[in-house]
């Protein structure tokens, strides 16, 4: 896959996003929903990091907080060394060009009143990236690169199929020549044959433009196909992060095991791999005083940290009680 891994393009440090639960006439905050609860990871330049987890685990909130679309509760996100939440409005506008997002639903993520040309060109015009006479050519080029027929630029979203709309969404993100794209369930709503084409397109564009992806999905076969590394999220925290092949060969955290064992089999006579009963492999080296964090997420009282149990394989661990005393 990608070759020039090394420089961290994105660094996330202990990012938290809480939503207040308000009650009573005074709307007093009684508790918080901890959608993202202390998440740290890096994404290297040119890499695809897959982020998997079930609905409600906070993966989409993480993706959007990371782009500063949602305000964070605490923690830091660095893009190319710049802390994006500290950057002023002007600087943030600059950064937005580099950091884009492709949404899940190709039906609701496009403005029905804008033509394809307006949709793709809107942000380019806002950032004044192209002169007036260059703009149309740029839109045309971007569209055809993403497989949208340049003759259809005057059409409206309702005139396209789901796959075509998703291509328009990709073209809209790509028109700004971004370096980093969050793909938030970008292929989940598509039929398999269309999904295959869009995945191929995303991979092709990555090769051409040296793009970095955070690929959020609940589909494990898709994430295996596209990612260099995978982070598994569970109740607001990342519980395991490893290279794709290593994760699928020998998952360590119980939730990763459960998730991987639930994948439907690929052939009627093949049995699904059951990871759940697998013992913790010998190479897992957990420092003294720590335990693998397999606590009930509702009863987690102390913070957990990501521990590197072998080269590039991280597991969430917590300080065991007897060492706290």
């Amino acid at each position, binding site marked *: 896959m990608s070759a020039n891994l090394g420089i961290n393009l994105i660094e996330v440090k202990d990012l938290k996003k809480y939503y207040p639960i308000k009650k009573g006439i005074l709307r007093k905050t009684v508790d918080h929903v901890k959608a993202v609860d202390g998440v740290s990871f890096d994404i290297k330049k040119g890499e695809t990091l897959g982020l998997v987890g079930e609905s409600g685990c906070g993966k989409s909130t993480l993706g959007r907080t990371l782009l500063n679309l949602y305000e964070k509760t605490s923690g830091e996100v660095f893009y190319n060394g710049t802390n994006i939440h500290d950057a002023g409005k002007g600087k943030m506008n600059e950064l937005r060009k580099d950091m884009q997002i492709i949404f899940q639903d190709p039906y609701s993520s496009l403005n029905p009143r804008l033509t394809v040309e307006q949709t793709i060109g809107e942000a380019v015009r806002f950032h004044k990236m192209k002169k007036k006479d260059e703009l149309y050519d740029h839109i045309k080029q971007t569209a055809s690169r993403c497989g949208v027929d340049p003759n259809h630029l005057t059409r409206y979203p309702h005139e396209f199929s*789901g796959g075509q709309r998703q291509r328009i969404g990709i073209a809209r993100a790509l028109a700004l020549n971004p370096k980093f794209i969050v793909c938030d369930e970008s292929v989940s709503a598509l*039929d398999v*044959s269309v*999904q*295959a084409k869009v995945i191929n397109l995303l991979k092709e564009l990555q090769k051409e433009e040296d793009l970095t992806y955070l690929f959020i999905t*609940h589909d494990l*076969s898709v994430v295996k*196909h596209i990612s260099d590394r995978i982070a598994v999220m569970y109740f607001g925290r990342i519980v395991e992060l490893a290279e794709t092949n290593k994760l699928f060969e020998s998952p360590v955290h119980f939730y990763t095991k459960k998730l991987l064992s*639930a994948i439907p089999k690929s052939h009627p006579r093949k049995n699904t791999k059951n990871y759940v009963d697998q013992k913790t492999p010998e190479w897992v080296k957990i420092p003294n005083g720590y335990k693998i964090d397999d606590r009930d997420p509702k009863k987690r009282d102390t913070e957990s940290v990501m521990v590197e149990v072998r080269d590039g394989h991280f597991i969430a661990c917590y300080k065991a009680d007897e060492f706290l005393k």
Partner: protein
Amino acid sequence: MNKILEIDDLKFYFRLEEDKSVVKAVDGVSFDLYEGETLGIVGESGSGKSVTTMAIMGIVPMPPGFIEGGEIRFQGNNLFSMDPDKLRNMRGSDMSVIFQEPMTSLNPVLSIGDQLTEVLFFHQKLSKKDAKAKAIGMLEKVGIKGPERVYNGYPHNLSGGQRQRVVIAMALLCEPKLLIADEPTTALDVTIQAEILKLLKEIKEEFKTSTIFITHDLGVIAEVADRVVVMYRGKVMEVATIDDLFDNPIHPYTVGLMNSMPSIDTDSDELYSMPEKIGHPIVIDREGKYAITDEIYYEDDTQMITLENRELRVHLKKEVD
């Protein structure tokens, strides 16, 4: 084995309001369902798989839908010429459906108990007490913990997986002979999906229900089905047993569908890209003996034939010596 359901050249069309043009949603579909088997129907959106099964239940709004031709026979009786009252008695008791969206297929303002016992009052004329006992027993059977509490609760008290279990319980209450599951796990998370699939398999063992299982996910099909119908644009492309289909898919559309799915087992860099136009294999007919060729035929003149343990949509070329 006996056939419980026969669909014979079903043509189900829709007439569009604005320009009176006709959409051929189901265009000459034939297949049979045997007693006790699970038949998978796969296809992408718009392939007609849902309309076919909704036509079996008689729940497609007409108009705009209309039956252009064909027959659906359930236990030998043609459903289209049946007395409407008789049909209504059959729906929900002899045949029932599990829908895709557990969020929308339950009524939010009725308690789970009310929704479950409705079919028992209507079809089996049970007393209130008996109906409640039966409903709670069924909730327990589909793996719901604390069935009493759930019985008195409302849909919003339940998670997606629990709701789907309730819907399955509802469908099974009258012990139907035919169960139609329309993408029952598509809206669920993988771990919940695995649990529901396991439950459906157990139910099949226990009740010996004949099931039609509709999905777009070949992985799910591999888990549950005995035989598979592959549909594309309102027509059947291939019908085969699950082993034959996965070992040796023949129709270009089936092959394409399989190759389009990213697989857990293989590392391929690029996924297969389905061509815009799907063709059919050309088969040479030598005095009744078929020989399949590598050539592909792109026009409409195709037919279903039996070849290599399956039914296949092909273009037949008669060879004369």
